[in-house]
C-alpha cells in the first residue's frame, strides 16, 4: 500500500495556490505595466486561464471516475451541460417570466441555482449510474457517449426552455452581496479558488476509505467485491461525484460566457475532456490542471504560431498537428504528461544518486 503523504500534499497545495494567486495578481496590479498575457508571450491569456480552471474541475471528477474507479465516461460534457443549463435557465427565465419576484433578483439566487444544478445533475447521475455502470470497458464508453449525445441533442430542442440551438443569453454575472465577481480578474480568483478546493477534496477522497475502495475496484472488481467492497455503490458514488463537479464547472462556465448553447457541450468536448485527463495522467488528481493546460496551450500555440509562421488563414493545419500530437503523447507518454514527467525526474535523480555513489532503494 502506498504511504499517504498528507504532508507533501499540503505543501503542494500551498505552492500551487501561491503560483495561481501570483499569476492572477499580475493582472490586477500590473507591475511595470505588465499584463498576465505578456508573461506568456500573449499565448495564454486571462481568458484561457479561467477556461483551464473551469475544465480542471471537470477533469478532476473524470480522474476520480476513470483513473481511480476505472470507469470510462465519454459523455462527461453532458453533465457539464446540465450544470450550465441549470444555471442558465434558472437565472434568466425566472427573471424574464417574473417567476418568484423578489427572490430571482437577489444575488444569492444564482448561487442557489448553481447548487440546484449540482443536486439535479448528481441525482440524474445516480439514476442512470446504477444500470449503466454494470457495463464495462468499451461498452460503458459507448453507453456514456450515447447519454452525452442525447443530452446534447435534447438541449438543442425545446426553444421555450433551453433557447433551442441559439441557446440562452444574458446570463447575469455572479456577485456576493454588492460585490460583483467581474471583471475577469475577479472571476479568475473565484474559478481557481474553487478548482483548488476541488483538487484538495479529491485528493482527500483518494486517500480515504472510499479512495481505497475505488482503487481496489480498478485493480480487480471481483476481488474488491469479495473483500467486502460494495462495488456497485462505490462506482455510482464516483460517477455522482464526477457529475456534480462537471455541473459546478458548467455553472461557472455559464456565468463566465454569460451564454449557453448546445455547441460547446458536444461529443468533441467529451472527447477533449477524456484526452485532458489522459494527458494529465489518469490516476493523478494533480495531473488535471496540467493536462487541461497542456492541451489548451498546444491548441492556442498552434493556432497563433501557425498563422504567423505559415501565413495561413482559416486554420485546419493546427488541427492536423493537434491530432498528431495527441497520438504521439498517447504512444510515448501513456501514463500522462505529469506522471511520466515525475517518473522521468525520479529516474534521473536515481541515476545521479548512483553515479555519486549514494545507495538508494
Amino acid at each position: 500500500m502506498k504511504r499517504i503523504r498528507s504532508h507533501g500534499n499540503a505543501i503542494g497545495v500551498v505552492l500551487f495556490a501561491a503560483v495561481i494567486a501570483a499569476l492572477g495578481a499580475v493582472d490586477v496590479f500590473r507591475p511595470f505595466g505588465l499584463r498576465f498575457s505578456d508573461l506568456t508571450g500573449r499565448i495564454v491569456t486571462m481568458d484561457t486561464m479561467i477556461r483551464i480552471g473551469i475544465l480542471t474541475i471537470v477533469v478532476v471528477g473524470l480522474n476520480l471516475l476513470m483513473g481511480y474507479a476505472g470507469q470510462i465516461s465519454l459523455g462527461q460534457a453532458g453533465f457539464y451541460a446540465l450544470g450550465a443549463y441549470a444555471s442558465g435557465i434558472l437565472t434568466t427565465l425566472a427573471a424574464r417570466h417574473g417567476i418568484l419576484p423578489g427572490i430571482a433578483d437577489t444575488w444569492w439566487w444564482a448561487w442557489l441555482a448553481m447548487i440546484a444544478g449540482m443536486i439535479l445533475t448528481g441525482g440524474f447521475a445516480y439514476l442512470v449510474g446504477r444500470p449503466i455502470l454494470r457495463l464495462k470497458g468499451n461498452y460503458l464508453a459507448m453507453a456514456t457517449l450515447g447519454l452525452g449525445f442525447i443530452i446534447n441533442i435534447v438541449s438543442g430542442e425545446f426553444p421555450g426552455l433551453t433557447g433551442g440551438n441559439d441557446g440562452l443569453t444574458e446570463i447575469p454575472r455572479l456577485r456576493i452581496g454588492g460585490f460583483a465577481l467581474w471583471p475577469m480578474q475577479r472571476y479568475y480568483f473565484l474559478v481557481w479558488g474553487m478548482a483548488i478546493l476541488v483538487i484538495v477534496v479529491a485528493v482527500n477522497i483518494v486517500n480515504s476509505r472510499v479512495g481505497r475502495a475505488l482503487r481496489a475496484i480498478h485493480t480487480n472488481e471481483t476481488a474488491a467485491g469479495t473483500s467486502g467492497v460494495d462495488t456497485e455503490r462505490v462506482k455510482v458514488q464516483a460517477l455522482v461525484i464526477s457529475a456534480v463537479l462537471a455541473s459546478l464547472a458548467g455553472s461557472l462556465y455559464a456565468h463566465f460566457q454569460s451564454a449557453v448553447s448546445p455547441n460547446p457541450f458536444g461529443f468533441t468536448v467529451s472527447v477533449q475532456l477524456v484526452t485532458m485527463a489522459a494527458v494529465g495522467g489518469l490516476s493523478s488528481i494533480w495531473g488535471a490542471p496540467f493536462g487541461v493546460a497542456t492541451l489548451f496551450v498546444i491548441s492556442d500555440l498552434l493556432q497563433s504560431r501557425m498563422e504567423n509562421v505559415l501565413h495561413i488563414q482559416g486554420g485546419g493545419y493546427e488541427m492536423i498537428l493537434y491530432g498528431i500530437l495527441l497520438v504521439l503523447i498517447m504512444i510515448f507518454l501513456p501514463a500522462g504528461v505529469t506522471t511520466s514527467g515525475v517518473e522521468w525526474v525520479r529516474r534521473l535523480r536515481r541515476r545521479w544518486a548512483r553515479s555519486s555513489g549514494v545507495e538508494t532503494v
Partner: protein
Amino acid sequence: MPRFFQRRPVRIIGIALIVAVLLIASLALGSLKHYSPQNYIQLILDGLRAGSIYALMAMGFVVVYSVTGIINFAQGEFVMLGAMICLSVDAMNLPLSPALKMIAAIAAGVLLTTGIGILMERLTIYPARRSSAVTLIIITIGVTITLRAAALLIWGADPHVLPAFTTLALEDRIFRFGGVMIQAQSLWIWATLAVILILLYVFLQRTLIGKALRACAVNRRAAQLMGINPSRMSMLAFALAAALGAVGGIVLGPVTRPIYDMGVMLGLRGFVAAIIGGLVSVPGVVVGGLLLGVIENLAAGVTDPAFKSVVSFIILIAILLLRPQGILGGGEKSTEEL
C-alpha cells in the same frame, strides 16, 4: 467467441417482437400525419438504404474489434475518405470514357483509403499495441481529428457531388411503383452490400489468410503459437476495415453530398449497428445495420427529423443495458475482454 460467420439460432422472436412494437407505435404516430401505406414503404426503403451503409461500416468495426480489441473511431473517416478520393479522381481530366473513369475513381478511392488504413495501423496502433483500451481509443480519436482536418484542407468545408453510377450524372434514374420511388443508386447500394457479404464470407471461411484472421480473433495467443503473426493480422484487419468503409462511402456518395465531416455521425451510427449485432458477428451487424436504418427512418418520419439521432442513441443505450451481447445472441468475449 467471435466466429464471424457461425450459424447461430437467431433470436427471431425477440426481433419480431421489437419490430412489431415499433411498427405499431409508428403506425399510431403516422396516422396522426395521415400517412398512406406508400409513405411507410418509402420510409422503410429509405431506411434500408441508409441501413446498408451502416452495415458496411459496422463490418469494419467488427473486423477491427474482433482481431485487435480496439474500437476504431476512425471508421467514419474511412467512409469520408473513400467518397472524397473517388469524387476527386472522377473530377480529374483523364482520357477515359465516363464509365471507365468512374471505375478508376472507385478503385482509387478503395485502394488509397486501404493504404491510409494500413498506414494508420503501422504508425499509430502498432507502436501502442500494448497500451490500455482508453489509450488506444484516444489514439484512434487523434487519428480521426487529423484525417478530418486534412480533409477540410484538401476538400474545403463545402459539400461535394459524386455522379450516380447508373446515369454517370447528377440526376439519378428513378423507378416508380405506385407512390413509391426507388433511386437506381439504392439498388447499387443493396447489390454492393450483398456482394461484399459474399466476398467477406469466402475470404474469411475459405482462404488460409482469412482463417488466420479468424483464429486471431478467437485467441490471439493461441494463434501466435500456431505461427500466425498477430501484428500482420492487426494490419490486415485495419486494411479490411478501411476498404469496407471506403466502399460504403463511395456507394453512398451519389445519394448524399459528401462533406469533410460526414464521418462523425456515420461512424457513430455504424457503431450502434455493430452493437446491435453484438460486435463480433458479421451477419449480426448486417441485420443490426438494416434494422437501425429502418427504425431510425420510421421514427424520424413519424415524429420530427431532429430526433433521428436521438433515436439511434436511445436504441444504443437500451441494447447495451438489456442485451450487451447484441440482440442476435453472440459474443461472450465482448463484456469480459476489456
